[in-house]
């Protein structure tokens, strides 16, 4: 089984002071060699194929800041509805989904975060996508 591990790094101060998530949140994955592009931006395009397991987790840039993913909205033709899980024995979350169908083109999805505290929510507007792996 191939895993595509996506990490979101959120600059909490920049998101809150600018009142904007896009541009102050950086996405990375572990699939560049298979074709992922736009690493290090809010518009990461993750290369995936059928049966890949996709994982998402998040950090705050400022070491003691609070960030949590509260929802991920995808096109359910291509991905199972992402589910939140806890790393065993902790209260730190990750989200997981399985690729049902290899995308033919770039398919956008959206991530919603709690930033700074549990009641302050931000969602990506022009955010990340999935795309087909390199041939």
């Amino acid at each position: 089984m191939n895993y595509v591990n996506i990490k979101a790094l959120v600059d909490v101060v920049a998101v809150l002071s600018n009142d904007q998530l896009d541009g102050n949140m950086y996405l990375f994955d572990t699939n560049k060699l298979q074709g992922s592009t736009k690493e290090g931006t809010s518009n990461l395009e993750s290369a995936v194929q059928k049966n890949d397991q996709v994982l998402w987790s998040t950090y705050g840039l400022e070491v003691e800041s609070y960030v949590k993913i509260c929802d991920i909205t995808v096109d359910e033709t291509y991905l199972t509805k992402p589910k939140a899980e806890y790393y065993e024995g902790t209260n730190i979350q990750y989200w997981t989904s399985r690729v049902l169908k290899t995308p033919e083109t770039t398919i956008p999805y959206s991530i919603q975060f709690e930033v700074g505290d549990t009641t302050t929510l931000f969602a990506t507007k022009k955010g990340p996508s999935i795309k087909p792996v390199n041939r």
Partner: protein
Amino acid sequence: MNEQVNIMIMVDSIQALVDQRLDGNCFMVDDSRFFSKQKGTLHLDTQCIPGQLIHWTVKAVDVQTPVSIKQISFEPYQQIFNTTNVENLDALVWNGIVPYLGNKQQTYKYKVVLQIGKGKKSTLETFTPSLTILPPY
């Protein structure tokens, strides 16, 4: 040499940005040799005498978060020097000598504007701290 009184403002930057207010996320202390009131709160009333140099500084509780003083002003809150377009607020030193304004003890509230990061929600202010100028000995 002017005797210096230091006023320090400490801020929980991220919480202040989340709440969009300084009250509850910010506290002030001074080292005046007189009996200042409400130490540790935003209602700090620093007692001082004419001739002393007051020096304000600000620090963020989380060292990896930014905070700078954008403005300190007394009524009618007009600035002689407009700091709106100053790029590097940390190149500003907030020092001032206490003037002689009469023989009666008088309290003057002042406004503090802090900048946390940049952007439309980065500027926060309070009107509650004050200086009480004691009659000169």
